[in-house]
């Protein structure tokens, strides 16, 4: 089994090298990412076990957070440095609760919604693919986060607000160009697409108004794992 995996990895690394091109990569406009991952805010953390309002209303499972990231290349030397804007959507539906203890679930529905917005700085090692022709490109990202949230009950808007914070991510892009170099060249010629790939990343966030004592904690409880499609223009 291990031999099979090693053979597959060798083929993955060797195939693009065989098709190495000598021309330097063109300068890039930037990139677009579309993806998401399972998210669960760490709201119950502030109660240190004495109460679990999030779990009471929404249960213990995560819900998908979808993200769209558009970034403009600001430096194209050793890899690509990009300044970007990321947004998305998260919505979790649960049950409204009785107003007095013991707080039990009722037939009314309540939802917690977030439109996360982020200003990002990303460094992506495109040279790993463009010069060494290895289709696994690493990247790191730092972001200022602003989670715009609102609560509803039975479809009616309740409280709303925004919580600020930061995040740091590290990820890998599996460049898909090597699967079909002809199609990749055609995409480049027709749509100015430099690369397409699948990304996998992990994010550590701290979204609690930078430690404010009057803020809840919308950080992911542990690490936020996400995946999606990356297109570099």
């Amino acid at each position, binding site marked *: 089994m291990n031999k099979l995996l090693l053979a597959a990895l060798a083929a993955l690394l060797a195939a693009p090298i065989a098709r190495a091109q000598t021309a330097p990569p063109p300068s890039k406009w930037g990139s677009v990412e579309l993806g998401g991952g399972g998210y669960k805010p760490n709201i119950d953390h502030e109660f240190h076990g*004495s109460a679990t309002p999030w779990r009471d209303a929404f249960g213990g499972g995560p819900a998908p957070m979808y993200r769209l990231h558009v970034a403009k290349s600001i430096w194209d030397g050793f890899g690509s440095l990009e300044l970007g804007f990321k947004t998305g959507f998260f919505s979790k539906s649960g049950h409204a609760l009785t107003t007095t203890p013991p707080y039990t679930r009722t037939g009314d529905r309540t939802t917690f919604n977030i439109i996360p917005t982020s200003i990002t700085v990303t460094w992506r090692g495109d040279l790993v693919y463009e010069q060494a022709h290895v289709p696994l490109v690493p990247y790191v990202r730092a972001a*200022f986060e602003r989670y715009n949230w609102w*609560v509803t009950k039975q479809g009616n808007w*309740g409280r709303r607000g925004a*919580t600020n914070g930061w995040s740091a991510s590290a990820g890998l892009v599996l460049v898909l160009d090597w699967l079909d170099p002809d199609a990749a060249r055609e995409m480049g010629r027709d749509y100015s697409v430099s690369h397409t790939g699948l990304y996998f990343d992990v994010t550590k966030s701290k979204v609690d108004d930078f430690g404010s004592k009057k803020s*809840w904690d919308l950080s992911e409880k542990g690490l936020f794992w996400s995946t999606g499609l990356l297109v570099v223009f």
Partner: protein
Amino acid sequence: MRRALLVLLALPAHGLAQTTVPSSGAVTPDTTDSTTINIAQCTGTQNAVRGSADALSLTLNWTAVAKDSVTVPVSGDLFRVYAANQQPAAGQSTGTSCTQPASTSSTFTVNQVGGDIDLNLTNNGGLTYQGQSEAYKDLVAGAGFTCNSTTSTATLYLCVQWVDSSGGIKGWANGTLSLDLRVPTNAPILAANGVTAGDGTLHVNASGNDPLTVTCKALATGDKTAWSSEGSCGGLTISGLTNNVTYSVVVYGLTSAENPSDASNAEPGTPIPTDDFWQHYHAVGGREQGGCGGPAGAAAILAALSLLALRRRKP
């Protein structure tokens, strides 16, 4: 420019006011009217479950087809609406439409519904007329159908005859309606935990329990009576109730033609005040205050977007 804007503004309103024009030789109910006649419409008596949701009359629109050598209606011409239990004949040259059957294999029942109609109806040009109101029950009676069966379906044939002042046939239009008097054999089932409390509301989860049942409505009776909207039997909500008052809840099944079943078994339910997530978070001592979290965040996002926009302008 101003005139062009006015024209553009007027276009949507004009579009909304338009009625679907029947094809030549066709008579059809207005697009807002049901083409299937249910028990309430057949009898002309609204039931408690649907109430005024069942309109008891419909509006007919038609575009007639002219008999050979006939061109346009002239003063003195009339229209007559007929209802029949089978397809009427339509001969381009003979003009034996409406009152003659296309086939003589079974008894043909046909009757004129309402009186003669003069040309004062709204005319959309040519032989297209709209706005003739008829009661569903009159059309049913004209075709010789009765409303006492709860298992039957039938096709009701409409025919509009265009005649001159002496009764000579000049043209006609044909159409159909469906008669569906079927009712669910079984009432919905409401489980003991099928009624859950909400804030001034009761949420009802029932089983339709009959192949003819496609939707349901729930009724709460207590210090007042209130209906849910019509919808999925498993997800009905009755609103406008008084908290801490116990209501008796029953559910009715409805067929695709909107014929109601008998009431389900009754289950009690008591609306109670509820907290949404924000209220509950604060009830257990949460510290978040809400609001925009300070202007720094919005300012940073605006600054970064401005930076991107400025960079884009560089050659």
